[in-house]
């Protein structure tokens, strides 16, 4: 394996390095406690309620693939080489709302508001990934299948999911993100150690075999990468 290096990822228009967090520090702990980005909420802490939903970006060929994950059960090494987006990132201008957010307001789709950032991220990922037309109801249901609302109810949220497409389109500039991800792709594989724990993200089967030989007691985290598939 290569020498130790920090976990590196794209977040808030720049590359971040984390070199002092334990390997099981979650993305949500990083956001709320380290960065004080408290838009993402902790509800259940077990990947069920979706209040912590964030979006990860990865290279897919020449493009960018976005997908939602539960920040409460993702460990920081899973961010290595990726882009992280939270509810604070979706508005394109300060003081303005993203169409998905504006539609949530217009349709009365937020009441206590605790689940709202998660719903916004799920709808935002769909808005960005599917730019060739409005999703149908079943596609919206699938997109928000990981978000629980316990006071507003889902009808106005479904209405907001449609209404967002009636507002002027607003898509973020992908080029800086793509440039950052291409830069991250040139890094050696992650070999990370902090606070008495270690983690690695091998890039080849032989590196993985070597890591398992070196650390026979290590826990294999079988997490996914959306974009390498096909």
């Amino acid at each position, binding site marked *: 394996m290569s020498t130790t290096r920090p976990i590196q990822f794209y977040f808030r228009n720049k590359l971040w390095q984390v070199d002092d967090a334990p390997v099981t520090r979650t993305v949500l702990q990083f956001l709320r406690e380290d960065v004080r980005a408290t838009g993402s909420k902790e509800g259940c802490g077990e990947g069920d309620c979706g209040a912590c939903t964030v979006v990860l970006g990865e290279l897919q060929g020449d493009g960018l693939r976005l997908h939602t994950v539960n920040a409460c059960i993702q460990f920081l090494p899973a961010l290595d080489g990726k882009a992280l987006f939270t509810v604070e990132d979706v508005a394109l201008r300060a003081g303005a709302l993203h169409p998905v957010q504006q539609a949530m307001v217009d349709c009365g789709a937020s009441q206590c508001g605790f689940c709202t950032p998660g719903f916004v991220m799920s709808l935002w990922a769909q808005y960005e990934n599917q730019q060739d037309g409005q999703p149908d109801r079943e596609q919206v249901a699938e997109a928000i299948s990981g978000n629980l609302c316990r006071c507003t109810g889902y009808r106005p949220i479904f209405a907001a999911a449609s209404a967002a497409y009636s507002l002027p389109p607003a898509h973020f500039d992908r080029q800086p993100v793509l440039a950052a991800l291409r830069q991250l792709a040139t890094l050696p594989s992650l070999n990370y150690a902090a606070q008495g724990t270690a983690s690695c993200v091998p890039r080849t089967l032989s590196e993985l075999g070597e890591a398992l030989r070196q650390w026979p007691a290590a*826990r*294999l985290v079988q997490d996914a990468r959306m974009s390498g598939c096909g």
Partner: protein
Amino acid sequence: MARCAAGAGCTDVGLWVSKQLRDIGDTIHLHGVPELQSITRHAHALEIGAAVSLQAAFEAIVPIWPQWQELARRFASRPVKNAGTLGGNVANGSPIGDSMPALIAMGTRLRLRLGDEERDIALEDFYLAYQRTALRAGEFVRALHIPLPTPGELFRTYKLAKRFEQDISAVCAAFYLQTDSQGLISTARIAFGGMAAIPKRAVQCETALLGRRWDRTAAEAAVLALPADFQPLSDARASAGYRQTAAGNLLLRFWAETAADAPAAGLPRGLAEIGPIQVSAQAAGGAQP
């Protein structure tokens, strides 16, 4: 073996940390290895790398096997399907992992890798006991090989859970039948989750079907054999009696949807109005919650 290196989806491991406050020690993440991320359609099998997300795996599986559609939708929420993997679901070996009954019934084989050596194992032989698998120290699941459909086969998989998505199954079932040129059942693979300490084939139930025509009589004989295969537990999700009854009813549902003498055969799924199916107390294991 100290803390074992058995693979597990981060959607499970995450909870060991967030809920059980477990120190899981050092970690090796699999999402960086391209060889584990590929989906390949071979002549006779669909190969799915162990780090392919559940979402991507289902997007490859459902066009080939539409019978997976409902399970794929109900398996978990979208963020969990984005982060979790089919390889992790299989390798973690939970007795109520939703993919394994279907994968076992379809005859899936795993390719395991230790150092530079690889070996294949049938998925049904992978599970030894409660959360114990055939993985040796340092060995990991590299890929799944699902045999492609063959003419005449009948296959269904069903998930019973209280919520539509994001719920753990009370019972998960999968049925696979192949008939010979005389129309007699030549292969039967029936597997359940939630009925035993591991995802498990219903051998007695299968035996009751072999050599018979796939009709109501055969289905009822198979239902009667089920209690010989399983002695399910009662827990927060379902009572033992519910599980035993539901398992038999799912088998009858499979008959109702696929057999020539069945009222719903040939109808699109979900449109069948077959009415309540009566199961004898004996077929249901005699236990009623």
